């Protein structure tokens, strides 16, 4: 059993920053946890009822109230500011695409459309894969995420990517893998009876291997 509070390894250009903020919060909350719980247990032990003990008659202290209002406020707002930068990188500032694909969720599969040899989506040489996303390493993969029916959530745990697919909306998601290999695609939003089976594989290739795979697929799928 894994009782660790460490995150599993991650493999995208932004995942290091995301994990970094996680560890910052883990340190802050961890220290707060030990201090507050420690004090609570210490007080329970130290001030437990004994014959002759009398509680201190004390209504509070404005100084302490100000302290424990301002210190948490500054800390959480600082976490907010740091988080904003990474959030913008992941969700707002989409880089120029190395590969553009359309991912469409529907009960209970992920359909991926690739641009084909002409490099443009929506043309006759587009080809598709089911429950597989193939991508080159070290290039931003920009996904247009769609849904045909209900909400799904496109989850690439190793890339630290998650985005709901919403019917009627085109949502842009991007990631850039830093190491070739096979990774998981999951659905993280309850989408019906087969929700649990809506998984797939993300395969990341070197640039050359991806080219080879892409052209072979394009040829196979030519009508």
């Amino acid at each position, binding site marked *: 059993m*894994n009782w660790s509070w460490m995150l599993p390894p991650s493999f995208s250009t932004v995942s290091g920053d995301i994990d970094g903020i996680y560890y910052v919060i883990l340190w802050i909350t961890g220290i707060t946890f030990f201090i507050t719980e420690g004090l609570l247990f210490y007080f*329970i032990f130290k*001030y437990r009822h004994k014959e002759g003990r009398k509680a201190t008659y004390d209504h509070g202290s404005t100084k302490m109230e100000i302290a424990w209002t301002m210190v948490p406020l500054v800390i959480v707002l600082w976490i907010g500011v740091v988080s904003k930068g990474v959030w913008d990188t992941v969700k707002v500032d989409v880089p120029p695409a190395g590969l553009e694909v359309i991912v469409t969720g529907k009960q209970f599969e992920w359909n991926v459309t690739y641009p084909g040899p002409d490099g443009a989506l929506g043309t006759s040489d587009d080809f598709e894969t089911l429950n597989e996303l193939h991508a080159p390493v070290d290039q931003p993969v920009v996904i247009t995420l769609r849904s045909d029916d209900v*909400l799904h959530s496109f989850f690439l745990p190793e890339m630290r990517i998650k985005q709901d697919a919403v019917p009627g909306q085109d949502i842009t998601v991007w990631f850039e893998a830093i190491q070739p290999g096979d990774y998981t695609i999951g659905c993280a939003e309850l989408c019906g009876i087969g929700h649990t089976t809506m998984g797939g594989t993300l395969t990341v290739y070197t640039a050359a291997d991806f080219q080879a795979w892409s052209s072979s697929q394009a040829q196979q799928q030519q009508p």
Partner: protein
Amino acid sequence: MSTIEQEMVHAAEGGHHDHHELPFIRKYIFSTDHKMIAKQFMFVSLFFLVIGGLLATMMRWQLGYPSQPMPGGMLLPDAMMAPTPNGAIMLPEFYNSLVTMHGTIMIFFAIMPLLVGLFGNLLIPLQIGAEDMAFPRLNMISFWLAVPAGILMLSSFAVEGGAAGAGWTSYAPLSASGEWTGVYLGQQLWLASLTILGFSSLVGAVNYITTVINMRAPGMTWFRMPLATWALFITAILILLAIPVLAGALIMLLFDQTLGTGFFRPEVGGEPLLWQHLFWFFGHPEVYILILPAMGIASEVLSNRARKPIFGYHSMVLAIIGIGFLGWIVWGHHMFMSGMNPLLGTSFMISTMAIAVPSAIKTFNWLATVWKGDLHLDSPMLYALAFVSMFIIGGLSGIFMASTPVDIYIHDTYFIVAHIHYVLFGGSLFAIFAGITFWYPKMFGRMMNENLNKLHFGLTIVLYNLVFWPMHNLGLQGMMRRIYDFTQYEYLAPLQPMNEFISISVFLLVAAQSIYAFNFFWSLFKGEKASNNPWDSNTLEWTVPSPPPHGNFPEMPVVYRGPYEYSSPESETDFYPQTTPPPSKPPVQELIPEPVTPTPEGF
């Protein structure tokens, strides 16, 4: 004279002076006495608490032993379980119903009516010195709307297609049409039930607000009100403003389901995200509806059992009010991954970070309350201390989700399942145990058995943590919530031992609750007789007999001080009831701030 006129005359004559014995049906069933209604809410919601727990054990069977025959599964119909030669295996559609109904029942039919229906009804009139609620018959209606809502909700298990299976949040479009789930009538019953329950809550909220504003005894100024009543008052305001939004959304979704309208269905021009905005605009205040009364109860018990004034009474009140305001502008943090504009995500992150502050203030004040106290570590105090300890964990884990980039990874994973249970079980439910144990003598005139309670406390706090702590770790490993068979994912399959460990802990945790149930019923008949004030408390409910008579106070109480004057040098004992006149200053009428005679209004 008509009955209404008779009642009005009776009320005008002072109401509580000559109460003849009411017939059984008016006393125990269609009662207008707030204490009886509180008990009715308690029994019904404890029943639902048991149901919710049993649903959880079935869910945990499937997670601990994915797709293995469930013991006793053969007793369930084929619509829920697939029979095999070795036993019956749970179907995914039934698992989805379990997920949905466990959440719905625990939130709407167990925790909320325990906190608001039980403690709101029991404590508000008694703690402010009122003879009953402002509108006793509305109060009765509030309970009798909740009952049919509960019956409708449970009956949905028996209809064709089974109970609702789109999660307790019922996200559209999954919930908007049976074609996606195979659940038609079940989802509609879910919507109808919650709409009716919403009316029940609204009626109750109006009553609480009116009662607190109008019916406080002479001398019971706003800042002499006990924190439990403060919390319940702010909670009632949140209910009054939040439930109409939910009711509107539920009715729109019901129209989408039954009439084919397109509020949330994109194929006919609807907007799925609208449901989420409406649901969470209600749903986040709801989170505070579920924790504020628990905070109030814990404050009462901590101060009393520490024999020490609550630390920073005014900041405690301001923190409750602050949460009441900030609670309205954080709903978007449930929707960071929803496809909502990511710039909006940043604003919701900042407001969410800000709402951590009032919770921190309350926690530090609780710590400072037990600091240098004289801690009587009996069972209500143990439950209340557990509340503080577990709420700290739930509060801290919330910061992870509040940070938008971290939420990308842990959103919709078991990390959030851990978080919500640390707040709602570790927080609210431990406070409910504290509250029921603490006010049990006032409700029933008998004490609960202390040894059994300590045994229950010890088992519950340990098993509870064995269940929910490792869920953080599951979430960090990427295990999604609401997933029927996680072993379908190769990277999640190694988590089976931990899931099995959690499931076994759940079975023991649920079994341990029978100790409390036994103690509860046993003490009704065999418990030690309770005095009027077994906890040496200051607040008004402890000045009247246990249980209090109809009309509560034989004479209008007069309040001289705040509720937490424990170990005051002015008093010879370590408590100083709110009604004890100050020494050297006899209770001259002029000293009493504007004697308000509460008008005993009928409905």
